[in-house]
């Protein structure tokens, strides 16, 4: 091996070691600054407080397309066949428990099926403003909906889907609020 190639080899090893050390330090620092969120799981009707607002899941039902249209007079899923889609509707209570006016967006979250990993954002159903402003002591009921498509879930999980299998996750940090739909 020539002297030059030996120098290049040593230089390459030196740079590689420096690179690995820099990488390890950077990864350690970023993960120390942002540790995993603490999961806080709440049962049906159990209130959880966050930033002056209290959230609680009140009810969850799973409907087929026809029943959803009949019950809520909402036709946004009318184009789908009944065996293709299931519609999840959950009722969420949001209450201001602070002494200040609270501005909140209750649908900063996703419906989640832990067993399969299926998840989808909740869409507000009703004519309420998506950004709610609640005075101290005031509360509001919000109806959130999502559609579970057959193609986005295992057939077995789709057929047996039950409100107890689902959670509503309010994606906050450093606490992660998980509202279950069973007691």
């Amino acid at each position: 091996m020539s002297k030059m190639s030996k120098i290049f080899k040593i230089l390459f090893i030196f740079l590689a070691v420096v690179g690995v050390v820099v990488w390890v330090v950077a990864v350690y620092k970023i993960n120390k600054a942002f540790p995993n969120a603490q999961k806080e799981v709440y049962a049906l009707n159990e209130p959880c407080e966050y930033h002056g607002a209290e959230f609680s899941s009140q009810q969850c039902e799973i409907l087929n397309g026809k029943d959803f249209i009949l019950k809520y007079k909402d036709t946004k899923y009318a184009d789908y066949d009944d065996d293709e889609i299931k519609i999840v509707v959950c009722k969420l209570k949001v209450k201001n428990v602070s002494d200040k006016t609270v501005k909140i967006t209750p649908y900063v979250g996703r419906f989640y099926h832990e067993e399969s990993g299926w998840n989808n954002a909740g869409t507000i159903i009703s004519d309420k403003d998506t950004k709610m402003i609640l005075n101290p002591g005031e509360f509001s009921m919000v109806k959130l909906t999502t559609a579970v498509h057959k193609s986005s879930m295992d057939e077995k999980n789709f057929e047996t889907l039950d409100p107890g299998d689902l959670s509503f996750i309010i994606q906050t940090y450093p606490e992660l609020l998980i509202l279950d739909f069973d007691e």
Partner: protein
Amino acid sequence: MKKILKLEMYRATHGLGFIVSMLIGTAIALAQFFIDVVPMAGKILFRYTGMLTYPKNLYSVWLGGNFSNYLLAYFTILPILIVLPYGLSLYMDNKSGYAKNVITRVEAKKYYRAKCIVNSLLGGTVAVFPLLLNFLLTATLFPALNPIGDQYLSGNSIFSHIYYKYPILTMILYFLFIFLHGAFYAVLPLAFSSLLRNLLLLSLLPFIMWYLMSFVSRYLNESIAPNNVLFIFSRCTDLFLTIVIMLVVAIGSYAMLMLKAKKGDMIV
């Protein structure tokens, strides 16, 4: 065998094809990192009407974690990138007479086997290296928080059952899956070196097969389309069938070469 393997590996890694292939893949990975990831690094925490929403995390920001034009471009040219390093070497060796020289000294079987091994290793490396590099670089800027309700990964994605519980294990399996994809399809041009006399056609063989399969699977079973299954968030439920197809391609190609070697034929 060891000697010929070493020699083939040296030829492959010192060739222009390998360097060009690695450079193209790396350029895409770095472009996504510097254009998409770096500007986002200062906005990890996002305030949304008074609430701190879940931080942007490594698994949803890196190149493979979300659908972008970079990823689409990378997976579109991947079947060409895996052939570039050494996929055409047998054709070239036959044409130049190099293969004849080698086979007078080494068993044809060993020579072809060495070609298969080197092609697989390089094909897999070329396929996985840019993704791995991008993932490791992104890991320095974004925390590896457990993904929660990732908008890209639905319940029908290949790894959705383990992604939310064991994200790092999922990434390891995903990188292995991409490596195997590159490795298995890279052997294909070797097997067809004797049948196809057109260099361009040979170099595009995995690309053509890849997209032909994707076209056919649209009518038969979409969950096995090669250009679909590579995405970590693709809605593919048939991982088993995908692996079977990959194995059939690789073993079929290997068997074709061994049959030729047994017959004592030159692949010319």
